[in-house]
C-alpha cells in the first residue's frame, strides 16, 4: 500500500516532504539590500508531494523559508509547482527571485533586514 492511498476521515490531506535544498545567491542578495550588509544570502526550499497521482496535476510544490513581509504584517515567500521535484524547485526559485526583484522596484530602494523573515522549520 502506498502512502498516497491513505484516507482518514478527520485528515484533510497528507503531503510527503520529498526534498530540502539550500540555495545560495550572494551576488544577487548583495545587490538587493540597501547598504553593504547581506542580511540573508541563502535560503532553503522544501518540496512536498501531494496524494494526487492520476492526472496531469502538478504533484510537487515548493516553498521557501525566507519570506517577504508586507505592510499588513503577513509574509509571502517563493512558491513553485511541477510534475517533478526538479521542476518544482526551479519554479520556486524563479518565483522567489522575481518576487524579491519586484518588491525592490516597488520600494524604489534596496531592501532592509526588516523586509524579510526566516520562518520556523515547521512552517514551510
Amino acid at each position: 500500500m502506498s502512502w498516497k492511498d491513505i484516507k482518514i476521515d478527520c485528515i484533510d490531506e497528507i503531503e510527503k516532504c520529498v526534498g530540502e535544498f539550500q540555495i545560495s545567491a550572494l551576488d544577487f542578495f548583495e545587490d538587493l539590500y540597501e547598504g553593504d550588509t547581506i542580511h540573508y544570502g541563502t535560503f532553503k526550499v522544501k518540496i512536498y508531494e501531494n496524494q494526487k497521482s492520476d492526472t496531469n496535476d502538478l504533484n510537487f510544490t515548493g516553498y521557501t523559508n525566507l519570506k517577504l513581509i508586507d505592510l499588513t504584517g503577513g509574509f509571502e515567500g517563493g512558491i513553485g509547482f511541477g510534475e517533478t521535484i526538479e521542476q518544482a524547485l526551479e519554479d520556486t526559485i524563479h518565483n522567489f527571485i522575481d518576487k524579491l526583484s519586484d518588491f525592490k522596484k516597488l520600494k524604489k530602494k534596496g531592501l532592509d533586514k526588516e523586509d524579510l523573515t526566516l520562518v520556523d522549520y515547521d512552517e514551510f
Partner: protein
Amino acid sequence: MKKMLVFSLIFLLSFSSVPFIKNVKAETEYDTTSISDSTQFESKEYNAVGDKLESENVEIQRDRDGDDSYELGYIISHGLLGKPVSSWHEGSFDFPAESLVFHYNKHKGEVNAKSAADYLNKAIEYRRTAKKGSKVSKVSGEVSGVKRYKKNGKYIDLAPDGRIVSFGKQ
C-alpha cells in the same frame, strides 16, 4: 561500337549526376542560411509553445459541445496553463479557472497580485500559513461547508475538500 556506347553512357551519367548533386547541396545550404531572423524567431516561438504543451502533457480535445476546448482556451488566454488551477473551486462558475479569474479581478488590488497566476500562487501559500493561528468562521454560499480562515488582515475561504473558493483582504 559497344565500347562507344559504354563510354557515352558513362559520360552522360557523370555529366548529369555530379553537378546536379552539387546544385542540390548548394541550394540546401542557401535555404538554410537565408532564413530571416523573424522566421527563426517565429519558429523558436512556435517550438517553445509546442514544447510547453508537450511538457505539460496537454491534450487538446474537442467535445461534442466544445466545453473542454473552451476551458483550455480560457486557461491559456489568462496565462494559467501549467498552473495548479485544480486547487481552485469552480463555485457557481462552469469551471475553476473562470471562478479564479473572477476573484482575481475582484481582489487583485487587495493582495497586490499582478496576474491571475500570481493571485493563485499567493492564495495557495496563504492557505498553507493561514492554518496556524487563524480565526475560523462558516461561510454560506453556492458551495456548502465553506470555512473562512482569517489572519494578518487577509482571509481565505476553503471548501471541505481543501480547494480555494476565495482569497482577499478582510
